[in-house]
């Protein structure tokens, strides 16, 4: 066996590798989603990916850019998958169409394509749908509704989870957690953002839970319900829109956790992670500016 040649540092290299690994990490959670809630979400995901690729191809052609390298880099597909996961499985097809088209065309391509968008495209698409069609965005299923899969009894007798989080969602979020940890192990994302998002959310929830047990939900409930874990590992870590400096990432993640808790507890929407991510996206350039690392040889 011959000695390998330099470079010896192994990281996830191209955009395609990174995006593929993100999709692999999402697969266990998606499988659990389909197990509990049926095939609706899988149809949504496939449809969203197709719409995303078509929109991206159209916009690239309009902008006079080469199609193949950008379509194959998988970033549009990841945006589509994340958006489809955020939508209820019963959402009509035109909602997925409008959300994905908006996310790719307006929130990504009109700003300059991959790497140039200031806001997370999947979250922009989700927020557009949430504001425009508030009724359809509430068509969530309960696991008991899906015939043949009533996991409610299983989970209520489980000693670890008990009545923790939404039924079915605890498992989905747990598998997303495993996927996210694998991404950190593979060095696709760094630990700073997920740890601070979940940590600040849990900390704030703990403080208020200790103040009044009956009024505020427990920290574990906040962590395993809704899109907190999906948001922490997959959405907030989007390298284009998140903060880039290590210290900046800590502040960025903390801000997301705090805002998520505030919107969840006192705001008008059930899950605040989308708005929290968008708000911190706005703040990311400023955070980056103030947390620039000291260059070697810098004079005070």
């Amino acid at each position, binding site marked *: 066996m011959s000695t390998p040649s330099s470079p010896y540092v192994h990281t996830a290299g191209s955009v395609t590798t990174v995006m593929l690994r993100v999709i692999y990490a999402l697969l266990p959670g998606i499988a659990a989603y389909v197990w509990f809630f049926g095939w609706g979400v899988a149809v949504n995901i496939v449809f969203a990916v197709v719409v995303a690729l078509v929109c991206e191809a159209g916009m690239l052609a309009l902008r006079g850019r080469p199609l193949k390298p950008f379509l194959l880099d998988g970033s549009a597909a990841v945006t589509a998958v994340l958006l489809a996961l955020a939508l209820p499985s019963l959402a009509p097809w035109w909602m997925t169409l409008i959300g994905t088209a908006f996310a790719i065309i*307006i929130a990504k391509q009109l700003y300059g394509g991959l790497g140039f968008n200031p806001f997370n495209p999947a979250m922009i698409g989700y927020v*557009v749908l949430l*504001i425009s069609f508030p009724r359809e965005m509430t068509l969530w299923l309960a696991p008991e509704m899906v015939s043949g899969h009533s996991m409610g009894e299983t989970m209520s007798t489980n000693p670890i989870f008990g009545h923790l989080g939404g039924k079915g969602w605890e498992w989905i979020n747990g598998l997303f957690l495993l996927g996210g940890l694998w991404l950190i192990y593979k060095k696709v994302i760094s630990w700073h953002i997920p740890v601070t998002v979940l940590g600040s959310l849990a900390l704030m929830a703990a403080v208020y839970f200790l103040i009044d047990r009956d009024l505020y939900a427990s920290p574990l409930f906040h962590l395993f319900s809704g899109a907190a874990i999906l948001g922490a590992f997959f959405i907030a870590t989007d390298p284009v829109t998140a903060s880039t400096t290590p210290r900046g990432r800590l502040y960025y993640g903390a801000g997301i956790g705090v805002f998520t808790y505030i919107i969840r507890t006192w705001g008008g929407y059930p899950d605040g992670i989308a708005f929290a991510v968008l708000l911190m996206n706005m703040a990311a350039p400023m955070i980056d500016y103030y947390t620039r690392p000291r260059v070697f040889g810098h004079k005070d």
Partner: protein
Amino acid sequence: MSDIAYSRIIRDGLWTNNPAFVQILGLCPLLAVSSNVVNGLSLGLATALTLALSNTIVSMVRHWVSDEIRIPVFVLVIACVVTAIELAMNVYLHELYKILGIFIPLIVTNCIVIARAEAFASRNTVTRACADGLFMGLGSMFALVLLGALREAIGQGTLFANAHLMFGDAAKGMTITLVEHYHGFLLAILPPGAFIGLGLLIAIKNMIDARLARRAMATVLVTHEAGWHA
């Protein structure tokens, strides 16, 4: 300085120097009021009338207003004109006046009115100033109506809803319902829809201009070649 041709004034006001699409002035009423066609049309007409009248008056007094105090004088003129129009609307178009609310008096602060007074009316003859004000106002109204139609069609699925507020009870049947039982796309009616719609309209206008320019270039090249061989 030679007088500007009327054809150029008309073309500038409506297209090449359109207040909303090229100068991008007066965005506050444009974005806030253009949620449907009737609101856009009424405020556009009010703005056009204000522009014509204020340009005329400013042009009439331009020789007696000294440079140092010209801005307060212009604002005073515009405020008088807008007050008159607001009172008239309150009397004759009361329901519409209530819907438009604060945006009628806000025509005083509309940048396009004072911009035309300063840039054109204070330096040109009365008739030209009046024409410029009128056609700038019509250009602005064109933008308001177009954006209003777009937002109303996408957001509510109708056109000319509430037309009776402006044209009287006989116009109640004027509403065109484009899609039966339209679900409604709330984003188009909210402010983000206004910004995005305006951006798309400006993009379309630039596209049209580019295409016309390319066609004009091709014609020039063809005639040049033809002349070369002659």
